[in-house]
């Protein structure tokens, strides 16, 4: 079956832009570890929904932009997010079939892996490790996933993004 005509790609770009903005928002101290990984979540959704449009390259570019926003080493987030995109592309057929809670679990694992790669590079560069705290963002992201999935799916259908 030939790939459908690209349509509504601006919706994908806009959702990534919003995710980048949300990751740049200054947070109060008590929220810093509890903020979901917006960019990772959006990337997972679009990779699952439109695997022929959003791929590892998109993950790499997003990661590069996120590196510049966060001020981390160039390529740190790029590596983590391209890995995330790659895994999502491998799992998308299964993920689409799963019920919401199982998808959340998989999201927890994926974002957890993303965070782990990020922390590895951080400690290789010399930033002190954060211990088990790095598991909190994946947890919060996994809890948020069902809601985000529904919202982005509604947006995708409404604007007929392919």
């Amino acid at each position, binding site marked *: 079956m030939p790939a459908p005509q690209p349509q509504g790609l601006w919706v994908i770009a806009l959702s990534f*832009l919003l995710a*980048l*903005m949300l*990751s*740049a*928002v*200054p*947070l109060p*101290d008590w929220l*810093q*570890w509890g*903020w979901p990984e917006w960019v990772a979540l959006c990337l997972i959704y679009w990779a699952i929904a439109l695997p022929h449009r959003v791929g*590892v*390259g998109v*993950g*790499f570019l997003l*990661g*590069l*932009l996120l590196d*510049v*926003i*966060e*001020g*981390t*080493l*160039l*390529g*740190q987030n*790029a*590596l983590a997010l*391209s*890995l995330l995109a*790659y895994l999502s592309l491998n799992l998308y057929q299964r993920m689409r079939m799963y019920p919401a809670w199982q998808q959340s679990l998989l999201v927890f694992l994926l974002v957890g892996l993303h965070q782990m790669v990020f922390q590895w*590079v951080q400690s290789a*560069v*010399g*930033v*002190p490790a*954060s211990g088990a705290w790095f598991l909190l963002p994946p947890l919060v992201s996994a809890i948020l996933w069902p809601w985000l999935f529904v919202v982005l799916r509604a947006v995708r259908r409404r604007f007929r993004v392919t």
Partner: protein
Amino acid sequence: MLVCGVLALLLMFADHRYRQMDQVRSGLTLLITPIQWLVDVPTRVWSWADATLSHRDTLLQENKELRAQALILSRRVQKIAALTVENVRLRELLNASEKVDERVLLAELIGVDPDPFTYHVIINRGRQHGVFVGQPVLDATGLMGQVIAVSAYTSRVLLVADASHAIPVEVSRNGVRAVALGTGSVQELRLAHVSDTTDIRVDDLLVTSGLGGRFPPGYPVAVVTEVRHDPGRPFAIVKARPTAQLDRSRNVLLVFYGESARQEAQD
């Protein structure tokens, strides 16, 4: 995936080791500058609304208080002007080199790094305004940090509280020199390698010593909060609280000082 992975690793290695990557980072920062501005918009709208919808009485009262404060400060400035002239004359008598007052640039905070382990802030002045890497940044009450990355319209500032920052200071009371390290907490700096017999007490004011050529001498950095002599350790444990409002200031000053500033002035 392999291509992207290898590319990412190469980028990380290059960014970690080579200075040239700063150009690339600066170019990319130009791309995301609109995002930084957009994120700052709600705060600006709030401040604008707060100011515009303020009660007239509140504004008049604030105006009066600010005028009184300005008057007190201008008296101090007059005194300082006289002291500066006397200082220049005395230095001439001693054949010491002349001290030049530094040029400053006003800037505003437009973003804060969300990473809980690093203390970076983004300000709205960039290369177009003459900002350079290593430039000292102050706020109204003390030294805040230094610029670590510059793009066309914005720059990134590393605060003194960040764990990777160190600044040469001296005790204003007796001139004892030390290095103040950031600890990752906004309330605490730590002095490195202070021996047990050094004359340093609680409530001493630590000012920049100017050694290292990066920060101009004489600006307040921190106030000593604890001096602990532990007999089991080779050095005393000295903690200090930064005088600058690191987590609160919105308006900052960039000082043109240092080797880069002199080079820029010559160009």
